[in-house]
């Protein structure tokens, strides 16, 4: 069953390459996405048997991330189909510099989407760290072409930076895994296998200096992919240049997968009683990320970049949550879900804005509420949700983290956390409100959104965000508890 979760999208991706007819391929995309979601939902009822001698298995954490990924992918795929239908034209004129450019072959785009899904699923379910590494690197390779969908120099630049920086980071992560292998080698030469389960159960036998080094390397490596400052540098470029549906997946799903890599390391360090060491690092980088995000969000004129930096901020929040430990971990895992839903919605809405206003400069966007009523409302909802105001999901998770910080007497962390959140809120609200409200510029005509999905999909996500704010299903709570339990 787990294998299916990986085989289905992979093979579908392979098929997508060679299918000529657009209709058929789109149907395939939707079908795969639906099948994947259905399958991953069934794993909640019947937990699947481990495969490859326990290398592929679903623990609470993995299942959570995997389900989230496939759900987001389902949403994204519906959006993508409508989006691709609109992008069918041969050449497009760039709205920033006016040159003409063409898009990548839709076939390869779809294929890469599916491979991307397969890779992310593999990340979620692989218990063997080296395998997990392989999967993470695979996500990079599969998603790079997505960023380069619009064939012009800016997207190319973004792609290049993404590739290079992430590859470097991931290479370091590999070194980290090797260090871990060393740490897992007992003096008598016997070694602990590199599966999370074994490492946790034997965590106390790990060689501490090597493990510390390993953890540092893993943090830097996966942190690069996850977008922790100061390794986040690829993130704003990639998110702002990729087509919005890709941005949504990058922010909503990919970052979580990278985060999972760090979480695995954290699991081990917690089990090994080294929590206070790894917690410190996570706290430091979490706060740094929030600070950097605050700095770049204030006065940010490109609304897609603004969203990207907000992703950096929220990755920071996740790191802080895990670093605080205790109840905060629960909050962090919950925040993974909330952030993914909200941010995916925001990016999709941003895509609609982009289509209607043909500019990424928030100063040139106004009156969205009257031009694109649905998207406009969702934009405001997203803004409020992402800045952590009730009654939306992120508030609950962010509050849980804050509470833990104060309960643990981490006053400094709590204060800094609140101050940065406040700054970011104030900085995001100004441009975001100006975009939604006011009267639209004369030349902007209410572009009739042809594809219904373009507004329905974000609306669905918006509803989900709202629901998560007023009702966290007990089954989910239980899963979150379980997951948090792994992380101490």
């Amino acid at each position, binding site marked *: 069953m787990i294998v299916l979760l990986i085989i289905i999208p992979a093979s579908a991706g392979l098929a997508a390459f060679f299918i000529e007819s657009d209709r058929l391929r789109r149907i395939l995309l939707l079908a795969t996405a639906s099948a994947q979601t259905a399958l991953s939902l069934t794993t909640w009822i019947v937990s699947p048997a481990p495969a490859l001698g326990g290398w592929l298995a679903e623990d609470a954490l993995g299942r959570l991330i995997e389900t989230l990924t496939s759900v987001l992918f389902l949403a994204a795929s519906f959006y993508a189909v409508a989006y691709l239908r609109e992008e069918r034209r041969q050449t497009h004129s760039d709205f920033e510099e006016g040159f003409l450019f063409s898009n990548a072959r839709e076939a390869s785009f779809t294929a890469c989407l599916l491979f991307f899904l397969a890779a992310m699923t593999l990340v979620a379910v692989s218990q063997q760290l080296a395998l997990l590494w392989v999967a993470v690197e695979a996500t990079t390779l599969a998603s790079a072409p997505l960023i380069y969908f619009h064939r012009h120099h800016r997207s190319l630049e973004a792609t290049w930076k993404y590739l290079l920086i992430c590859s470097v980071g991931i290479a370091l992560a590999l070194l980290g895994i090797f260090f871990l292998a060393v740490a897992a080698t007992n003096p008598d030469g016997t070694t602990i296998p590199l599966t999370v389960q074994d490492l946790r159960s034997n965590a106390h036998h790990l060689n501490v200096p090597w493990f510390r080094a390993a953890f540092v390397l893993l943090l830097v490596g996966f942190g690069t992919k996850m977008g922790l400052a100061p390794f986040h540098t690829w993130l704003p470029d990639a998110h702002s240049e990729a087509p919005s549906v890709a941005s949504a997946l990058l922010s909503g799903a990919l970052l979580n997968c990278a985060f999972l890599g760090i979480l695995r390391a954290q699991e081990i360090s917690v089990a090994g009683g080294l929590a206070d*060491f790894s917690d410190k690092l996570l706290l430091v980088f979490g706060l740094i990320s929030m600070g950097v995000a605050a700095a770049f969000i204030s006065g940010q004129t490109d609304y897609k970049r603004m969203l990207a930096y907000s992703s950096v901020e929220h990755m920071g929040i996740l790191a802080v949550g895990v670093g605080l430990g205790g109840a905060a971990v629960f909050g962090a895992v919950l925040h993974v879900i909330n952030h993914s839903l909200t941010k995916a919605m925001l990016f999709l809405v941003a895509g609609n804005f982009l289509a209607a206003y043909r500019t990424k400069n928030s100063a040139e966007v106004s009156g969205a*509420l009257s031009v694109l009523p649905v998207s406009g409302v969702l934009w405001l909802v997203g803004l409020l949700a992402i800045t952590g105001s009730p009654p939306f999901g992120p508030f609950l998770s962010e509050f849980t983290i804050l509470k833990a910080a104060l309960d643990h007497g981490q006053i400094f962390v709590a204060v800094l956390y609140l101050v940065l959140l406040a700054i970011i809120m104030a900085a995001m609200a100004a441009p975001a409100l100006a975009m939604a*409200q*006011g009267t639209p510029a004369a030349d902007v005509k209410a572009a009739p959104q042809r594809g219904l999905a373009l507004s329905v999909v974000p609306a669905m996500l918006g509803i989900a965000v709202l629901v998560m704010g007023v009702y966290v299903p*007990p089954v989910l709570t239980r899963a979150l508890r379980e997951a948090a339990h792994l992380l101490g």
Partner: protein
Amino acid sequence: MTALLISLLLFGTGAAGSLIFANRGRWPTFIGAGSVIVGSLFGIVPALRVALGAPPQSLRIAWDVPYGSLYFRLDALSAFFLLPIFLICALAALYGAQYLEAYRGRKALAPPWFFLNVLTASMVVVVLAHNAILFLTAWETMALSSFFLVTFEDEKESTRQAGWTYLVASHIGTAFLLVLFVLLSKANGSMDFDRFSASAGAGLLFVLALIGFGTKAGFVPLHVWLPEAHPAAPSHVSAVMSAVMIKTGIYGLLRILTFLGPPQAWWGWTLCAIGLTSGVLGVLLALAQHDLKRLLAYHSVENIGIIALGLGVGMVGLSAGAPFIAIAGFAGALLHVLNHALFKGLLFFGAGNVAHGTHTREIDRMGGLLRRMPGTGATFLIGAAAISGLPPLNGFISEFLIYLASFKGAVSLGASGNVPMLAALSGLALIGGLAAACFAKAFGIVFLGHPRTEDAEGAHEAGLAMLAPGFILAAGCIAIGLFGSAVVRSMAPLISTVTGLSLIPVGQNLAEASNSVARVGYFGAVLIGLATLLSLARRIALSPRRVATAETWGCGYASPSPRMQYTGASFAQPLTEIFAAFLQTHQSFTGLEEFFPQAAEFHTHTDDPYQSYVFRPLFRGISRGMTYLRPLQQGKVQLYVLYIAITLLALLLWQIS
């Protein structure tokens, strides 16, 4: 409780309905306004019962969010705050139903009705909530829905600016509340109010509450959002926000006090100081305004200041173990909460009628409206007299109680306690005088004399639905003014909830205070009688005589013109001169030159000093500081990889060695 739940349900359905039938002509108006009115009628009954001493009711339902539970509790305190909420919201709905018609065709009318229902519901939940998560959710929902109502006319730049200020202010205020509630729940984990305990230093908690709730209530200097937001909003929304929404801040403060145990003296001193600054600065800034609704907004700051003074006096009394001072002080403050709701709602409705009739909010462009809008004028006059604390109206009753408490304190408390009392005394006196001056200006310039512009010339009276609320509230002002003693006596359960004193002594002290109030009431009645008698007498005296009408005597000046009348600015000028230091009024004057001078121009404009000298610079500074980090994102991939390398090495050096 069930009645309250039903009313909440009604608000919910109203909200939903007004959206669902958004493009069915007048349906949203009927549904939205109807639900608010009917829901309020449902809810006001149990509120009244509990406020008058019925036992508290509570309802706790499990809620599947972290730390959350749907825990509602209706005790005397919540009930007391529910009354104005229901009353004003219902009247505002009635008013809005007609007021918003002016926008039909230009704007979608469904959203304001949706948000009005949400706002009402959330305010109700705020005062009922007995669980922090529930409270915070309702609290922020309240802020957001009112935000969307404020930005109803979002095509105006000023409105958007006001919206942003409001949103940011309430968000930051909420941040303090988060910390406050977490610290309160620290002792025994649960976020339910009845599990709260002031484990951490009560002083810190008090300060947090003061800032967090003070932002909503509009304590100086946290009031800056208020004079922006209230004028920007549609008038019925301004009424709701100013009359009841900001009072939820006072409610929150009182609710928190019930967790903190016996107050320390310095809390009372602090509140007195805040009240004094808010009151005096509020009324001074109000004096300097030219925009009628902005003027009213600053008066909200002033009245919040008076309330704070009352609370402060009460707390000093409580900490000094002087029950009468405590009880009279709190009673005055709480009664003023109710009274301010009445007359401020009335005034904002009146201001709405004026703006609606003249298409301007500039006081100096009005004049002579009393002849054109008799109903609005009469009610506005009553509101003006009431807010200036003049007998025989309700404003005087509450201020009288505070005076009584602070006189008592000045007389009986030692040097330890009587400084705040004297501050309260002279402060109240000064505030009272200035408020009277300000409303003499507001009413006199707007409603009396000649119309100053065509707008004022062509003003027309508002429709019935926009007049009725004013009359109802005016009746309320008079009623409390005459029969205040009954109200005061009935406040015993409330006061004992707030002060934690047992019911019997509270009752006795209230009875003592209400004796004086009763006398005041008699005097009010006699005053009305005597005044009518005298005016009848002069009518009789005049009846056989010749009564002529003529031009106003211009002291021999041949051809006076309406533009020569005293303007609001010139009326307030002597006072604004005296207090110029606090106001920082900007003047621009293109003077008279030569023998045959050209037309000269004179402008005065008073910004909020805190806004322009504290907060705006602060925010600008922060964002400027932030931009120093921008060069990090150079665009050079080489640099980016270098960051990684350096960080990695630094970490290794830090962690491995």
